[in-house]
């Protein structure tokens, strides 16, 4: 689909919402919308796509109360704004949208969370992503380094870039709108996604990508949508395995889970964001034990988070139950950079090759 066709689709779908309200009001009816209930209780595992999606529960927002009416009014303003943005071929960040609403009097947003949620509502209703509305998030997308050639449609023309030969030490920065990037070819056996910038730089400095023919991706903590989208597409388009290497604590396991199974906030687009075949490298609680890694004691919050994960369907496997119970027994956690205690080369020469071959990746 061309950009013009895509914009026209977004415009049509948004106008359809406004038109429906128009007709309701013309007919003497109170305008309303229906949306899936966006809570943990309404997240279901979809066997076909192997990801988590919204269930059947729906809620109605109608203009029968001040709150409901204001919600619809705000949505009408946002639709009006996006319509204009599409017409003028402009784009804005979610933060800018929040500030733009300052001039909307009664329809102004109280906090940015509110405008973000409203955009997610529109994504759900139109079955489009926010990029279709020319809206982008604040945070940077992933950086990628390795044997991968891409083509990006930039404002200054189309560029072809090799993610090792044509970029600096920091790698290629993926734009927020991943749809402008095409993956052309690669020489990789697998993708390795890293939680911390320190480990990302360590792998590049040690030449891990060349030695093992790996595409190295920096997740930057809890990964942004564009980062997850890239991992999903690398896996789907090239059929190469995606592995995730994080710290060894409950919060990092959740980073892995959002890469592999999706997140509640974006469950409506899990199908295109999640990589159900992604594999977890570590740091595993058994690594802390087997490599005698420098470690910290688990805090009460860590322990609560681990216990919550024991009842989380995303961690409902023998592997995770074993690892989590082991960690609860040891009461210890380690960062991925703790491998430096064995020397700077240990992680790339010893740990990762051993672990990846154990997983059958190399």
């Amino acid at each position: 689909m061309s950009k013009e066709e895509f914009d026209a689709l977004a415009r049509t779908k948004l106008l359809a919402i406004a038109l429906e309200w128009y007709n309701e009001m013309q007919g003497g009816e109170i305008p309303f919308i229906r949306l899936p209930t966006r809570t943990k209780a309404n997240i279901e595992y979809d066997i076909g796509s192997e990801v988590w999606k919204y269930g059947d529960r729906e809620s109605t927002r109608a203009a029968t109360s001040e709150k409901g009416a204001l919600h619809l009014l705000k949505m009408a303003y946002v639709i009006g704004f996006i319509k204009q943005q599409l017409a003028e071929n402009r784009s804005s960040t979610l933060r800018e949208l929040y500030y733009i609403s300052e001039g909307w009097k009664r329809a102004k947003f109280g906090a940015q969370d509110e405008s973000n949620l409203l955009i997610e509502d529109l994504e759900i209703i139109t079955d489009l992503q926010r990029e279709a509305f020319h809206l982008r998030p604040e945070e940077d997308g992933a950086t990628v380094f390795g044997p991968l050639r891409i083509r990006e449609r930039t404002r200054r023309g189309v560029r072809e870039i090799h993610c090792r030969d044509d970029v600096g030490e920091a790698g290629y920065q993926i734009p927020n709108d991943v749809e402008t990037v095409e993956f052309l070819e690669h020489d990789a056996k697998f993708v390795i996604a890293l939680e911390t910038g320190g480990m990302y730089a360590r792998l590049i400095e040690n030449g891990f990508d060349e030695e093992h023919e790996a595409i190295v991706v920096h997740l930057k903590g809890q990964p942004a949508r564009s980062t997850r989208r890239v991992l999903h597409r690398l896996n789907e388009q090239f059929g190469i395995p995606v592995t995730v290497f994080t710290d060894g604590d409950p919060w990092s396991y959740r980073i892995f889970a959002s890469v592999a199974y999706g997140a509640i906030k974006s469950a409506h687009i899990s199908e295109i964001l999640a990589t159900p075949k992604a594999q977890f490298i570590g740091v595993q609680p058994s690594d802390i034990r087997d490599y005698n890694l420098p470690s910290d004691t688990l805090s009460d919050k860590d322990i609560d988070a681990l216990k919550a994960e024991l009842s989380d369907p995303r961690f409902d496997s023998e592997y995770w139950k074993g690892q989590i119970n082991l960690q609860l027994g040891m009461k210890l956690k380690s960062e991925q950079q703790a491998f430096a205690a064995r020397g700077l080369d240990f992680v790339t020469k010893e740990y990762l090759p051993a672990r990846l071959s154990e997983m059958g990746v190399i």
Partner: protein
Amino acid sequence: MVLPDILVQVKRVTDEVFRVIVEDNGPGIVPAQVPYVFGKLLYGSRFHQIKQSRGQQGIGISAAVLYAQLTTGVPSLVISRTDAKKPATRFEITIKIETNEPDVVSQKEVEWDRTHGTLVEIELRATLAAKKRLVDYLKYSSVVNPHARIRAEIDGEVFTFDRVSHDPIPLPCPIQPHPHGIEIGLLKRMAGDSALPLDRFLVESFSRVGKKAAVEILKKADLSPSKKAKALTAEELKPLLAAMQSVAIPAPPTSQCLSPIGEELIRKSLDKEFMLDFVKAKTRPPSVYSGHPFVVEAAIGYGGKLAAEEKAIILRFANRVPLMYQQGACAITQAIARVNWRNYGISQDGLPVGPALILVHVAATNVPFTSESKDAIAAIPEIEKEIDLALKDLGRELKTFLSRRDKHKLQEDRARALCAIIPEIAVKVAEITGKPVPDTTPIEGRIMHRLVAKKGTAGGTVRIAIRNYTDKPVSPTVYDTSPDPAPDAEPKPGYTHTVGDDHTRVWKLTLAPGEGWEATYTGKGGGTLDIQGVGEAVKMVVDLDV
């Protein structure tokens, strides 16, 4: 009868010494009594008298005089006058500590501008760290003494707690002691003062003792009816007391010896001091514990300026005196905490939480305190039960108020959505779709079934729109008040009334079912729109500029 006027002054003398002056317009004290009232501890005025009164043992004022004497050495000054025809007398008094007798340092007749009343001035070592509590004490005293005016000047700051009632309270009459509530000391003193034989002594000196009961008591105590009361020995008093307390005797009369404040006055004074959205008071019928008559009064206030998130304010009173300390140890507090306030729509964390105020007043001929400091009322089951009943009664009324208010809020909320926001959605949606603005009045009419009046300002024009969605003709009068002079109002108002910067335009209308009316003028809007001549339940006024 004279209404109490009380003036309290606290003046800083040095960093650590304050002069406290309290002045009233009461009946005054005859000069011969003054030295004893102020200069002798335990000089009680109430022995042999059973009635509701502020003090009990005669410790308060003489202890203050003593404290002043011990901390600064300055004698206390008293001026008192009983009658306009008599002069005022000025005393300087200390207490002889060894003998507990007054020492009059000076006494002379003086000119005084009051025709009757008493002034006492004491200088003592103190701090004003608890100034807020002091002001609260006066404020709370004013709440339960609605007939009194209390003025205070504390370290340069002036407070006035005005009266809400001009009717003096009926004086509680003393009653005879009831056999069930008497103590050995009092019995001994009464017997010693009586010249009567025992059977007549019992009937005539005690409340509710008839001949039959007297015979039964004496039989039980194994005493002769003809024995003179005066002749009783200490050994004979004990079985007599035990017999008096075990024989069944009707409860003492309660009505005339107690002086409750009354529901109306409690409500008025709470409203004056706290400005509440809701206030209700309850005076329970009098009751009796261990031979002592008592009456419980309670009140609940809600909303207004009370803090929304904090624990409810609790005002405790015993015989019209605020209890300021040991809140947790008091039977009143415990009774409040035992009520399940959630039933009445208030959240609770032990004590109720929210913009609420709870007042409990226990009036009794003998208030059972937990200790001599008289800070907290003891847990007497009869009293706790009365407090509980009063609070639950009030709780039900509060619940009715809250649910009515919530319902009203819901209606307002709905009206705002329908009358203010839906039209805005309509304008925006029309703009997006490029169609004419849809008419949303049918939605309003279908849902509201009322007279809807809207006022809004756009582009320097104020527009008032009224539509009759009821099925009957109505004749409302529209009052539109704002700083806009609006000389160009169309249609012209019936008349315009100006007070200061505010102009009130008045239109009288008659609207058939479904009929609308509109007025416009140049202006900035704001102010208020009021519709009269239409029942509260069938009108809805919406300010579109909010």
